[in-house]
């Protein structure tokens, strides 16, 4: 083990219980000064709870065990306490105020005051500019945050942390919402921060990132520490970490499937979509098709227009001035509203299930029936026992882990929420399912289950379109992959001929070079 005096942080025998559940049991965590330490584990393993204990969200006294910072016991009563000691946590859902400027966000709660207690705007903006330079973000500090992409917002959060004299920076799923380029940039920045003496703790699902960047990693499972692995010592492969997380080997990450494509189910021709408020084409003359029993992937960098393409097809729920032709089973259809799209057998499962996919305050039953309620109704009256039966069937078939179908969806883990979303769309009995980032933010075990469900669907003759930022996922699941760049289809590659490099190259093609 690591000698104690080398550690900036030690958490010993942390036990935290909620009524009826032990979220953490006897968890130990040791982080050396100046390293990048990864915490991994499935959803529900206790990663976020552990970080909430550390940052004082759960105040001292509400848990058992002790926290040593620089070898000294500390008792945080709130986030302000931990921040005053240089511990800053950046949550997965960024906490920036959209209509305030970058500089205002950075110094929010820590305003740069001049004489008379008034805010010194010159100093604020000048300091912010310095901080932005240190994280490599070339933006004007007076720019409103709402105008930045997620990747840049993440950098603003880090600049904000640095302004608080951070010594121990905690990043919760920092790259979950980022594309590959932004992710790489962020990982570079983390390395640089480490070299400048800032210790980083990173919670991540992306094992390739962990093996690429972390110096050591702690694996949690079911609220317990499984092991601490030293990456520097060369102990760690992705398979090794997976074994710790799930307690078993996943001999294959992607379940096998025999591909037997049938008739064409969906085809779009020359599909163009204009941005709802700006005068530019988000999708530009795209054509693609998908056949029954086939999984087709759409790869593209963030901003390439993947989601916009899917949503515009799905009842024109995105964009304006949509032109192009849409065929279902060879027949041209006009799906001008979501209801019409659903009637035509199209289903779209969103990339952001919390904001666009689920009614989080309702139970599983109501969420499963939400899109196909009319199937359960006669003359406007809902048959509520049938509804329960439908939900029960989904719970069983999808292996949704919840005490009952009356469980509130907001309390389920990401993987189970995603299964509810899938159940909802399957209940509409679609011919083609468009799955936008179907495994974002869910753990390895649940991912495998989602893949298995997708395979079951195509075996039943459904057509599936997967949009994903994770190229291995597309390569593992699809029969064909379209690449999208700046709203144009830049390539169509059968999976046998596809490699990550080839796809990246097509995804990065810019407009001019496309024929």
């Amino acid at each position: 083990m690591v000698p104690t005096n080398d550690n900036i942080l030690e958490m010993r025998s942390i036990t935290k219980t909620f009524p009826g559940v032990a979220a953490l049991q006897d968890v130990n965590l040791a982080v050396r000064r100046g390293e990048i330490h990864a915490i991994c584990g499935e959803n529900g393993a206790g990663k976020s709870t552990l970080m909430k204990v550390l940052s004082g969200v759960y105040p001292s006294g509400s848990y058992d065990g002790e926290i040593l910072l620089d070898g000294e016991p500390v008792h945080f009563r709130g986030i302000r306490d931990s921040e005053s000691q240089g511990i800053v946590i950046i949550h997965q859902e960024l906490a920036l105020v959209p209509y305030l400027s970058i500089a205002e966000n950075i110094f929010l709660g820590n305003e740069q005051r001049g004489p008379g207690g008034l805010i010194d705007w010159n100093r604020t903006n000048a300091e912010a500019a310095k901080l932005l330079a240190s994280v490599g973000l070339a933006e004007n500090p007076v720019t409103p945050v709402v105008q930045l992409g997620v990747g840049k917002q993440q950098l603003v959060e880090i600049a904000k942390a640095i302004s608080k004299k951070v010594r121990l920076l905690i990043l919760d799923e920092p790259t979950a919402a980022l594309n590959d380029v932004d992710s790489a940039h962020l990982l570079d920045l983390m390395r640089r921060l480490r070299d400048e003496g800032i210790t980083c703790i990173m919670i991540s699902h992306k094992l390739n990132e962990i093996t690429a960047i972390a110096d050591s990693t702690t694996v949690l499972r079911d609220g317990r520490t499984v092991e601490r692995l030293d990456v520097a010592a060369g102990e760690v492969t992705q398979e090794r970490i997976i074994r710790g997380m799930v307690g078993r080997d996943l001999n294959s990450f992607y379940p096998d499937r025999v591909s037997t494509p049938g008739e064409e189910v969906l085809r779009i021709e020359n599909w163009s979509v204009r941005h709802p408020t700006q005068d530019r084409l988000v999708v530009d003359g795209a054509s693609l098709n998908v056949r029954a029993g086939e999984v087709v992937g759409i790869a593209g960098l963030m901003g390439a227009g993947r989601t916009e393409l899917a949503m515009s097809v799905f009842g024109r729920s995105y964009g304006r001035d949509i032109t192009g032709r849409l065929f279902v089973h060879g027949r041209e259809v006009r799906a001008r509203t979501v209801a019409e799209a659903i009637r035509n057998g199209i289903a779209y499962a969103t990339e952001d299930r919390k904001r666009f996919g689920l009614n989080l305050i309702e139970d599983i039953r109501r969420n499963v029936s939400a899109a196909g309620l009319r199937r359960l109704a006669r003359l406007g009256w809902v048959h509520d026992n049938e509804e329960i039966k439908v939900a029960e069937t989904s719970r069983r078939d999808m292996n949704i882990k919840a005490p009952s179908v009356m469980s509130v969806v907001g309390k389920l883990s990401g993987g189970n929420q995603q299964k509810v979303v899938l159940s909802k769309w399957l209940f509409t009995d679609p011919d083609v399912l468009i799955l936008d980032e179907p495994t974002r933010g869910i753990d390895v075990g649940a991912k495998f289950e989602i893949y298995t469900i997708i395979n079951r669907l195509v075996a039943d003759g459904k057509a599936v379109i997967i949009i994903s930022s994770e190229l291995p996922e597309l390569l593992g699941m699809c029969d064909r992959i379209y690449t999208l760049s700046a709203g144009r289809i830049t390539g169509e590659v059968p999976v046998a001929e596809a490699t990550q490099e080839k796809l990246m190259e097509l995804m990065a093609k810019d407009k001019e070079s496309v024929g």
Partner: protein
Amino acid sequence: MTSTRPSSVGKRPTESAPAAALHAGTSDPRTLIMNNLRQSGIFVALVVIVALFAFLTDGLSLSPGNITNIVLQYSYILVLAIGMVIVIIGGHIDLSVGSVVALTGAVSAVVVIRQGQPWWVGVLAALVVGLAVGAWHGFWVAYVGIPAFIVTLAGMLLFRGLTLRVLDNISLSPFPAEYNRIAAGFLNGLIGGDGYDAFTLLIGGIAVAGYVVSCFRTRSARVRYQQPVESFALFVARMALVGAVVMWFAWQLAHARGLPIVLIILAALVLVYGLLTRRTVFGRQVYAIGGNLSAAMLSGVKVRTVNFWIFVNMGFLSAVAGIIFSSRSNGAQPAAGNMFELDAIAAAFIGGAAVTGGVGTVVGAMVGGLIMAVMSNGMQLMGVDQSLQSVVKGLVLLVAVAFDVYNKRRAGASR
């Protein structure tokens, strides 16, 4: 691991009952009490307040005459609360209902009193005006996309002004006797009775029988679908309790002036709207919109249409309340219905509706309205000063919602 919004458990006593208790066949008294307390905290609060004022007024508040009074005095607030809770579940608010009550009453008074039309023409005119006002609000909220707060704030001024115009700034009264009967009339002595009204008791008995039959059918359907149900003993106890309360209530009414006509209207509305919200596609879509607008939209809910009809319905119920109020006050006044919107909103929130939408029940709003009614009435009986009454009501609203928020936060504490 995920952060959660407050859960809706405990909001719909008959629907979202935590599964553990259901699976256990509800034989464990402790889980039973815990779950039922959380579910029916609002009912407990009502019982406590009724008991408190019965004690403070030496039982006067529970006398037959006073119970009849409460029904007559607060029926229009309860009617408004039905519409308001639906508006709030959908994630909106309606600040205009007081003005709409005044306008519909005024139109009815002009038609009946000034123009001498029969009473039912006045009723129809009021309903048409109410629907038109609702459509007006619905148009701006649903199709133009203006927040309901602004639209109905404008409506509050607009329709108050129109009321003054319609009435030429003066009160109109009295209505003919038929019109006055809507809110002040009783069904009495239809089948006799000695010192009490047998008809009222009969209606009470029919209501209880209907309740038992419908509960039994629900229960057997659930059994048929292999759904967990409460233990039979508890089921019977619940029937007996509800039956006893209803029959006692009917007994008290029967010993006063009989069955108020307005109570029949109110009961019918509660029944219809209870079913509408729980069992129809429209009702479900209202909850879906309030719970997560974007998700509802992407699930094929026609959000605009639903929002439009939410407000048309509010306009309709405002007209019903306007008719009842004008009938009760036997005339139309320019200042009628002032601040009614606040009582209706308070009733919905005390009854457990969520400020953010997506949560609430018609029954909850009725209980919330009754809590306000019993308190106001009790304080009036005690001769409490008007100013102090207002203070107490304000505090009760605040405490009720704070308690609810606290409860949800506890229930929603996630890992």
